[in-house]
């Protein structure tokens, strides 16, 4: 793992009316790191991820990608930024009117300006990587949850993002389908993809996370590598949460 910092988000804050959703959340990412956001529902994990992708504009704070500060007021800059920071959603959000392969190729054509042929080839490669070559011409309604999520990975990865944000990628899946999606994430991690993931898959986190970030009430309470937060004999809010999940 190199020390090259890719993303730096500082003092991200967001309020809706009087309610504080995010309070001074910061995050820095080095190349190849996998940071995991955990915490109870309503802690602000999804919102934080959406702010990192500027799907929601934070009220305060700054974001720097590869040393370039992002101008959040420029629509053009936001679109460019989002092509570099991929997003995987809990409920997949595949385009309902497009086949699997068109879901992957449409942004290559319309956003990146690839030719029909090149976009198709690239899409085939990405679908092949997630073992969905045979399902390429099926529509989202004809795919299982796990297959849909794998198409979503292919769609995000086809854009060659520097970073991938994953918002509870396995939470909407039937238990027997979780494994195939976790395998995709494991492969990505071993290939050096930089990722931030919100998840409740605690065992998976322990094995693979570079760092755990525990959030509650819109604030980052604790952060550190799995050993320092979850190791034997350690008393931490993270561990308490971990144990409560494990006891279910």
């Amino acid at each position, binding site marked *: 793992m190199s020390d090259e910092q890719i993303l730096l988000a500082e003092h991200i804050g967001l309020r809706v009316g009087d309610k504080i959703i995010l309070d001074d959340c910061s995050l820095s990412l080095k190349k190849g790191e996998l940071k995991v956001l955990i915490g109870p529902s309503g802690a602000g994990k999804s919102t934080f991820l959406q702010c990192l*992708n500027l799907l929601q504009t934070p009220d305060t704070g700054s974001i720097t990608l590869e040393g370039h500060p992002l101008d959040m007021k420029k629509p*053009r800059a936001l679109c460019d930024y989002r092509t570099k920071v991929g997003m995987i959603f809990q409920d997949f959000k595949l*385009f309902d*009117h497009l086949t699997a392969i068109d879901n992957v190729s*449409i*942004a290559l054509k*319309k956003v990146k300006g690839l030719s029909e042929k090149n976009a198709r080839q690239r899409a085939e490669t990405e679908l092949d990587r997630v073992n969905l070559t045979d399902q390429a011409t099926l529509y989202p309604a004809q795919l299982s949850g796990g297959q849909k999520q794998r198409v979503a990975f292919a769609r995000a990865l086809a854009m060659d993002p520097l970073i991938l944000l994953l918002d509870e990628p396995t939470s909407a899946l039937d238990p027997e389908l979780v494994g195939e999606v976790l395998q995709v994430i494991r492969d990505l991690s071993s290939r050096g993809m930089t990722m931030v993931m919100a998840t409740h898959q605690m065992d998976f986190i322990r094995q693979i996370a570079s760092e755990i970030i525990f959030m509650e009430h819109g604030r980052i309470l604790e952060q550190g590598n799995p050993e320092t937060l979850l190791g034997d004999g350690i008393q931490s809010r993270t561990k308490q949460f971990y144990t409560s999940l494990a006891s279910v």
Partner: protein
Amino acid sequence: MIIDVAFLEADLLPALNRGLQVSLALIIPASVIGFFCGILLGCARTFGSPLVKRAGDAFTALVRGVPLAIQLLFIYYALPKIGIYFDPFFAALLSFIICTSAYQSEYVRGALLSIRKGQILAAKALGFTNVQTILWIIIPQAARRALPGCGNEIIYLIKYSSLAYLVTCMELMGEGKVVASDTFRFMEVFFTVGLYYLAMVSVASILLHWLEKKAHIPGFSAR
């Protein structure tokens, strides 16, 4: 009633066929242009700035609120008083385009609003601009949702095109009415004119049904 073949062949059908051509010349451009104007108007009323939205809503409220016959008579008989002249055909065509685009915009608006937020979020996350999102994600989905309603409006248009005779545009209804007044054969004339409209509507229904089938996507309309 004995069918008078000679009357049909010599008087009625030639007149009605002439009228049918005029009717089609009204209906086809009015439905095509009206459909596209309806899409633009529907998009403006859904995605436009507050001012554009309000202007679009006001236009639609006015057009939907006033009987088409009055709009048609106003365009043909009242506008010349302020120096704007149309011949009967174009007065009818213009009023049909205005009317149908207002109704189409309502179907389009409903379909646009039905597109789930997640689809837009996913497009944004991939770096789509707002215009690209509307063009490549929202419109293709909305078009499928709007199709049954928009088709219904085209069926209406076929029938209300018969109002063109009010401004002396000699389409199907106008030609029929002249033959009827000249010959007093109201029964044969209006029965046959009715059949002509029924035939046009049937053809349109079959075409629309075919289009809906062709645009069908598994699992899409079920939602």
